[in-house]
């Protein structure tokens, strides 16, 4: 059993959206370099335009950079009772309307969409919507954290 129980009243709770985040070419290129992906559409505006995009686009997992700021607010809420030291990333999923691209100004907003207890473990799922400041949906990230229960 967990020594500190999770507060199931948090299921369905929505947290405040993050401040606007401006996606830059430099940050996309840095991220692409860090994951070792040499694709020119992540670095070169001409290559991105030749592929049909208005500017360089971001790799599919780039939204986690933005989503983590929002979902972090949810999982770190002291009222939730999650023991962060015991947490590992269990699952991740994205649903995309389109790729993020340089020049997008977006906010992320998280809600707690699942709380499940499996034996000594607690599985917490957050759902994070990333939208432009004009309200266009870019993607939704679903992240499941697993809190290993203290024996």
């Amino acid at each position: 059993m967990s020594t500190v129980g999770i507060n199931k009243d948090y299921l369905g709770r929505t947290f405040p959206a993050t401040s606007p985040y401006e996606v830059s070419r430099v940050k996309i290129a840095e991220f692409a370099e860090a994951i070792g992906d040499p694709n020119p559409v992540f670095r070169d505006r001409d290559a991105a335009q030749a592929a049909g995009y208005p500017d360089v686009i971001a790799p599919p997992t780039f939204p986690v950079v933005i989503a983590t700021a929002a979902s972090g607010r949810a999982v770190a809420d002291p009222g939730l009772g999650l023991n962060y030291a015991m947490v590992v990333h269990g699952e991740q999923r994205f649903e995309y309307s389109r790729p993020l691209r340089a020049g997008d100004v977006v906010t992320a907003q998280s809600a707690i969409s699942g709380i499940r207890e499996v034996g000594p473990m607690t599985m917490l799922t957050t759902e994070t919507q990333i939208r432009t400041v004009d309200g266009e949906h870019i993607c939704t990230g679903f992240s499941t954290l697993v809190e290993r229960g203290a024996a």
Partner: protein
Amino acid sequence: MSGPARYADVATGTALPAVSYPVTRLSLVKYCGASGDFNVIHWNERIARSVGLPDVIAHGMFTMAQAGRYVTDWAGDAGAMVEFGVRFSAPVVVPDDDAGATIQVSGTVEEKLDGNRVVLGLTARSGEAKVLTRARAVVRLP
């Protein structure tokens, strides 16, 4: 990498060639900085061992990024992803040497959907360990 995949040419059940991606300690340091995830288990062997890990491990999202690259390279369009999900089933252990570790990704065309969408089932291994399970990507093809 070999030009865009076309919906009409894709057949359900086709196995896609496996690709191996290297991961070193330097990869993890770069990923810490680029992602903002500075969890010590991704760069500090002493602390990683103290919490019961065999060594420093890669970020789950780094491994997912390699599977993402596998998919977008196959599709020939880095913006083709409609849906992408994984379960992190085992850590990628990254030793402190020049070789590091390898993440091997393979995939199968599982289903063709309407709207030119194709479902890929993915597998990722590092050494003997299956590091991603239930890994699935939906891409839209021309």
